[in-house]
Structure formats: C-alpha cells, structure tokens
C-alpha cells in the first residue's frame, strides 16, 4: 500500500460521483434522477474500494445501489398517476444555491486550514476479517452498538410495514 491512493482512479470516480449528483439535480424526469443517484452510489462504492474498505464497498453496492434505489424507484412508480407526472420543473432556488455555496466555502476554509494527524500507513491494509474482529468480538468494542443497530433496523421495518398497509385492510 503506497503513501496515497491512485490519482487517476480517484479523479475518474470523483468526477463520476459529482457528475451523477449534478445529473440527479438537473434531470427533469424523476425516474432519470433516481438512476443518476444509483450511478453516484456505485461511484462512491468504487471510492471505498480505493480506500481499501472492500467490505463497505460491497455493502454500499448492496444496500444503496441495490435496496435503496429499488425502493426509490418503486415509490416513484407507485406515486405517479400518469406518465407525464414524471417530468417536472427544475425547481431552481437561488437562496438554496447560496446556502449550499456558503456551506462549501466554510468547508473549504476548514479543510485547507486543518492539520490532520500524520499516521504511518500499514504495510498491509486491514481486511474484512479484521473488520469482523472489530465488530463481533468483545475486544473490538463495537459488539453492543452492532446489536442495537440490528434493533433499530427491526423497529424501522415494523414501522414501515405498519404505515404502508393502509387503514381499510386489516
């Protein structure tokens, strides 16, 4: 593992991610916007691979690019009565753009002035087995939060089913 990540691969995937986000915000058809979001999720999954987080890259593709995108597409299709409803206005808002630009300026200022701790990179990147040790053993320290997050997902699933089932069908 070198001192930094591959420049060309980073530039390609960063441009793909930003391009997907811009495409999502500028497409008039809401279905196309959902597919642009899927493209951004896949690019970020590639960036995770570049950061030698291969387990998270797979989870990113499965959860975001797989489950969340399908959920989005189904909700879009369920809530459109006519095909023409998918095409919308661009909803440009100068105040929102100003706020986002101010946020970006503050972030740029903060990142360029911050000093990050210099850590010697490991000769061999930690792999998925090491992540499993961190998450699933008492020594790793993340076992209890992991179980609680499983409970969060269960509660969210029950609530989602409860809200979508409708009143008249019992």
């Amino acid at each position, binding site marked *: 593992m070198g001192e930094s990540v591959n420049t060309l691969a*980073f530039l390609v995937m960063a441009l793909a991610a930003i391009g997907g986000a811009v495409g999502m915000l500028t497409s008039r058809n809401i279905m196309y916007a959902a597919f642009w979001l899927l493209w951004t999720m896949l690019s970020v999954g590639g960036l*995770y691979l570049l*950061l030698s987080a291969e387990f998270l890259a797979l989870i990113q593709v499965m959860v975001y690019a797989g489950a969340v995108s399908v959920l*989005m597409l189904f909700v879009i299709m369920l809530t459109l009565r006519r095909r023409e409803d998918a095409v919308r206005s661009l909803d440009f*808002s100068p105040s929102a753009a100003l706020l986002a630009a101010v946020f970006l300026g503050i972030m740029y200022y903060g990142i360029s002035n911050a000093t990050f701790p210099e850590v010697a990179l490991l000769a061999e990147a930690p792999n998925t087995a090491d992540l499993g040790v961190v998450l699933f053993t008492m020594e790793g320290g993340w076992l209890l939060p992991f179980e609680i997050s499983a409970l969060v997902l269960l509660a969210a699933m029950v609530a989602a089913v409860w809200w*979508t089932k409708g009143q008249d069908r019992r």
Partner: protein
Amino acid sequence: MNIGLEAFLGLSAVLFALGLYGALSKRSAVMVLMSLELMAVAVGLNLVAFSRFVTPEAMTGQAFAIFAMVVSAAEIGLALAIVIAIYRHARSVELSALERLKG
C-alpha cells in the same frame, strides 16, 4: 499530485453541498429524500476516508460508517413509507400539498 485525506474530504463536501441544495430546493418529496441520501453517502465517504488515513489499525471510521449506513437505511425505509401514506391521504407527493402541516 498526491491524493490524500484532503481530496476525499473536499469531494465529500461537494457531494454534501449538492445534496443540501437539492434537499432545500426540490418540491417533490421523493426528490428531497434522494438528496438526503446523497448527503448520507457523502458523510459515509468522509468516515471511510478518515478510517483509511487516520485510524487504519483500529478501523473506527469503518465501524462508524456501517452504523451511519444502518441509520440511513432505516431512515429511507421509514421516509418512503411516510411518502406512501401521504400519497394515500393527499393523492400527491408535492410538498406544497402538505401546507396544512403549517397549522
């Protein structure tokens, strides 16, 4: 050119700003939720970059990224269920159809 932590932080700041703009400007509830997901993805990228460059041994950032992913998956499932419930009620997912919530 050396791609270090700053490049990843800058990229995730750009993604977050784009998501922020979308969440504030779009008038369709589903588009707002998609922008929120974009912001969640930017945060996850930030965490993984910190994990790679600052705590490569302990993998604290990766553990945090997993929990952030769990929370955002729960959030999007619940939010889309609410969108379906709103659509049943108001026959529309436009945010302007929800002006009654102003009270």
